[in-house]
């Protein structure tokens, strides 16, 4: 009997198969037990709320009395009559379109900056990360003072250099960019992810490029960015999802004004749900947002093969 035959006969042994299966099941069980806290948390705090929101979207619900099923009424109301919902959607799309690329670019540039082994780089890194750990509400209030029309630092500087003041938060054209500006300040988190990505790029690629006489720009374009593309992809998805949920800055600084220029979609959901007690309608709006974000995420995933480079080992 050859070795192969022995191995084959053993692998067909029913008792051995059963033992192996039982061992695999036990291991799987232990595995599930270890991840159970996360799974339970996901089911209770993520999946259930998502399903509940989808259900409430089909009801007339104030949050105070039991919901009444109304079918598609909330969706009909939104698509047929609610001009503000579409205004809010437009504002949000504008925010996402501007904020996401700028945020990624700034995060990337900041990561390149702090990746150099310079004196004091740790201080710069800390300074860049600091806004991320400051509560966002505090950040927004700080920005409100900086952007104040009469007394804000930015307008004082503009006035000093002989330029006209800008009505940052009070004009229809500048309010949205001002909110975007506030959102750009917190680049610490994506900077750190980019930094981790930069550190994982093998040094020998740069050494080879140096031997070939590549310039810094060529190394950036042909080594750094391609090697970092999975991280860019990851940050892009997170940023798109987060940006669609823009809320706090507008809630605190402008409450959606002026002229609803900063009435973002989630702020409008909040207003419908908690100011007007239309929780059912707010849930329907949230479901639409869910679908929009899902579509965008799917599109980004679909585009992945065209621009994301994964090193093969």
């Amino acid at each position, binding site marked *: 009997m050859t070795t192969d035959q022995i191995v084959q006969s053993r692998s067909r042994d029913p008792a051995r198969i059963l033992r192996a299966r039982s061992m695999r099941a036990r291991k799987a069980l232990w595995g599930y037990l270890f991840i159970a806290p996360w799974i339970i948390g*996901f089911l209770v*705090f*993520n*999946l259930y*709320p*998502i399903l509940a*929101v989808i259900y409430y979207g089909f009801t007339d619900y*104030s*949050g*105070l*009395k039991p919901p009444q099923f109304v079918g598609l009424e909330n969706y009909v109301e939104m698509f047929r*009559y609610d001009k503000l919902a579409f205004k809010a959607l437009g504002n949000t799309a504008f925010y996402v379109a501007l904020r996401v690329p700028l945020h990624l670019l700034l995060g990337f540039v900041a990561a390149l900056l702090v990746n150099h082994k310079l004196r004091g780089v740790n201080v710069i890194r800390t300074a860049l990360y600091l806004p991320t750990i400051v509560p966002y509400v505090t950040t927004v209030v700080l920005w*409100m*003072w900086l952007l*104040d*029309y*009469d*007394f804000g630092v930015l307008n004082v500087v503009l006035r000093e250099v002989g330029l006209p003041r800008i*009505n940052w*938060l*009070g*004009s*229809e054209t500048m*309010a949205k960019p001002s909110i975007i500006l506030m959102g750009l300040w917190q680049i610490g988190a994506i900077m750190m992810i980019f930094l981790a990505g930069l550190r994982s790029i093998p040094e020998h690629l740069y050494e080879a490029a140096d031997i070939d006489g590549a310039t810094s720009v060529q190394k950036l374009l042909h080594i750094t960015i391609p090697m970092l593309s*999975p*991280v860019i*992809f*990851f940050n892009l*998805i*997170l940023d798109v*999802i*987060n940006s669609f*949920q823009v809320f706090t800055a507008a809630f*605190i*600084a*402008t*409450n*959606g*004004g*002026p*002229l609803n220029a*900063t009435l973002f979609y*989630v702020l409008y959901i*909040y*207003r419908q*749900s*908690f*100011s*007007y*007690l239309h929780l059912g309608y707010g849930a329907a709006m*949230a479901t639409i*947002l*869910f679908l929009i*974000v*899902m579509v965008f*995420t799917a599109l980004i*995933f679909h585009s992945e093969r065209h621009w994301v480079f*994964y*090193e093969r*080992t």
Partner: protein
Amino acid sequence: MHTKTYSRREFLRLAAGSSVGLALAACAPSTSAPQPSSGAAPTAALAPTSVPAAAKEQVTLTFWHPFGGSRIPLIEKMLSDFQAEQPSTKVEHVLWTGADRMEKFIAAVAAGTPPDVVMFRSHDLPAYVEEGVFRPLDDYISAAGINPDELYYKAEIGARRYKGETYGLPTVPAAGQDIAYYNVSRFEEAGLDPERTLETWDEWEEALAKLVDTSTNPPKWFGTIDENVGFFFNKWMYLNGGKYISDDLTKITFNDERGVEALQWMYDFMSRQADYSELRPSAEGFNYVETMRKRFATNQTAVYISGPWMFVQFPEEHGVQIDQFRIHPLPYNSEHPGTTAGVATEGGWGNSLPAGAKHPEASWEFIKFSCASPASLEFTLAQSRPNPVKQYNEDPRYAEANPYWDTILKILDQDFAIPITSAWVEIADIMTDAQEQVLTGKKPSKAALDEAAAAAQRALDKAG
């Protein structure tokens, strides 16, 4: 042993996919209820002494209110005074403030743990009454022998009534929140007498011509006439003899002749000074209020419209002493016969009794104590603001501290409550949008109000 290894690609895909779920779930705002403030401790230190435990059940009430800062000690004093009077009842107060306070309240009610007493804005009441959240107080009021129409100003008790029932008693006045503060130096500089009330719209227009000077840097303006964001069109409309809704509360009427005229007047008045966005350089955030106050304090504006709290805030926060301003009522349009002075108010703060309160009798005792006893006088007196109880404002300490007290009393007496429906908050937002579109020159008054009225009617019909 089989081990699955993840490439960077798989790991990043998994991480991104998980994040989608997490982030989407985060769409739902949190609904945590507020925690008792640390300020509750001093009341807990007071032990009941005069009534034996067996005589009356010992209860602890929770009282939610929005009065933070320097008013917390006043609340605590009121609670300790109450416990001295009612040793069997301890009241713990919870600071219920911030823009998300309604969210917290809804969560508490939905969870079956509402506060025992809550200080609630009267314009928010009807929507919650329709949801069965509050208990009417009329039986308690009758049993206590209180005649609220005699006790309170008409604006105060009127604002707390809905469909013929009373849902709370007022703590601080709803009336008298729209006082015109005249800047003495600006008035005198323009040759105007700050002591004289400009009673009509015509008189305001004449004063405007004298008070605006755009040749200076920064320019000198009259001031804005929509300080309390959103509700000012409604106020000016009532001062023009208009109404936002029909008497039977079924038809929106703010787009009628009086409404259109009032909004057009607002636009004309503001545009004679400067571009609207320069007059109102911030949106609804608190920067707007701060900017307006600083402008008044630095003599850039001549008139500032606000409530009686400015008697304290102007001197303490902006360095404007009490002799640097005078106060007067808002003007009305005297061209329409029957139109009188007196601002329409949608209400102020009052203490209400949630239907789910566990000790309604004890809650009522606290409401009565905090809204219709000398304890409420001490609470408002310490803040230099008037009391909703008429007779308490006769206390000589008010007039001693405030040289303009007679004007305050006159304003309190002439202001009145408008009828509020359960769709009021949404209707007010719709009116705000229309007002903003007109004042920024985006739409003419008639078109903006017609469009807004259609939306408001829809909201009203939906609310039933």
